[in-house]
């Protein structure tokens, strides 16, 4: 993105993507050990307001997935692509599966975070790649 094309960042979320790109992804932990994703000021499970950034486990496991053939306009050039929910322990995350053909994605596949870009818009997209 050029400087003249300055779009407002989403506080919390864009910082998280920056961190994930630098291999230091984190999750938010409350004093009662509930995990959640930013931006967040309150633990959605117990209402605690003291949230700490803890290191996200390096790999997660795909719990469910789909291959999308009819995308929104923001992913028109990307389809078909696989979207999955992966379990990283304290949190589960939704992402696009990259580095493997959509037909080869399966439940139980071990993945790590990989921030990629939409072929359609050039925007950053949260992705998973097989370990």
């Amino acid at each position, binding site marked *: 993105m050029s400087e003249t094309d300055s779009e407002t960042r989403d506080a919390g979320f864009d910082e998280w993507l920056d961190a994930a790109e630098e291999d230091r992804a984190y999750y938010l932990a409350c004093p009662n050990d509930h995990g959640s994703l930013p931006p967040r000021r309150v633990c959605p499970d117990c209402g605690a307001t003291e949230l700490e950034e803890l290191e996200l486990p390096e790999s997660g496991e795909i719990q469910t997935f789909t291959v999308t053939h*009819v995308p929104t306009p923001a992913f028109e050039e990307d389809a078909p692509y696989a979207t999955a929910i992966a379990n990283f322990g304290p949190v589960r995350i939704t992402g696009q599966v990259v580095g493997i053909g959509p037909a080869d994605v399966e439940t139980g596949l071990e993945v790590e975070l990989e921030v990629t870009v939409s072929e359609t818009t050039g925007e950053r997209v949260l992705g998973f790649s097989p370990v």
Partner: protein
Amino acid sequence: MSDVRVAGVGLTPFGNAPERTSRDLFGEASIAAFEDSGVPRDDVDALLYGNFMGELSEHQGHHGPLMAEAAGVRAPATRYESACASSGTAVRDAVMRLRNGEDDVILVGGAERMTNLGTAGATEALAIAADDLWEVRAGMTFPGAYALMAQAYFDEYGGEHEDLAHIAVKNHENALNNEKAQYQSAIEVSDVLEAPQVSSPLGLYDSCPISDGAAAVVLTSEEYAEEHGLEAPVSISGTGQGGDRMALHDREYLARSPAAREAGEEAYADAGVESADVDFAEVHDCFTIAEVLAIESLDLFPIGEGISAARDGRTTADGETPINLSGGLKAKGHPVGATGASQIAEVTKLLSGNHPNSEFVEDATTGVAHNAGGTVASATVHVLEVSE
């Protein structure tokens, strides 16, 4: 506690009418509802109106007063937005206001203009019912979200695409005689299995269509209905609402809908009925898998058994618990903001013998309407009973 009577219902045809504004659609539905009810417009105390994507589809916010105008009602009007459960939540608030004596007559309903956006535009607009940061920006679409649930269901409880296909076939069959339905055409299991994929394992025929349409319902207190000698034999005897985390990945279950279970339990308790008393239901089958999750959440079928209910003929028109005799969202259509109110209209017509499919539920006394928003982060359930 006073019952709430359904005095009149009105629906536009659901379908493809890109040129029609939502005010035009709701105007038509409200005329039908007032004619059906015999209630004068002057007696309306409030309009509660459901709409989801008006800003995106027709550059229109602040729908409440606009729709009061369209309906010819001089009363305070409020818009309800809970994604696809928008008018379900409007109905619930109307019921509570009538019960506590705040109001005597409420016009409740909803409308949605969608087809003018085209498939890509409507897909984008629907997607905003999900978590924008964590789901939509990862490429998740709405069919994609339900596909994630379908795959999780198959992995956890078994079942396959062919089981889902029977749900689509059944709902198309039910819509054959429904003159308001978007699709009045029969399909076969092979049509569903061979249709283009939308988001695997769901294909085109597992998905409800993009629809334009409106629904309006005139609700009154029991006292008002009796004082004015209304012919209003159906009452809303139970209401419930449940909620869940916004993003699917933050839920305890990927293949269950606890918000709908919570709403159902609350509505049953409120009405003083049990799931075994339910004769039939209109449920939110935006995708075939959604009907499975709905009938399990409503405790009409045990968890893990909803998947085979249509295939086994247990939810067909002549089955033990007919589901979606209107054709459901799948065949009747799903103009998002209108859907919850339209389900109330369908259940009312079925219970009062005024529906083309009433013959299948001739002796029925108890029907249920289940309306879900997003990937069921919102859900409302209403119990309707024949009260006279």
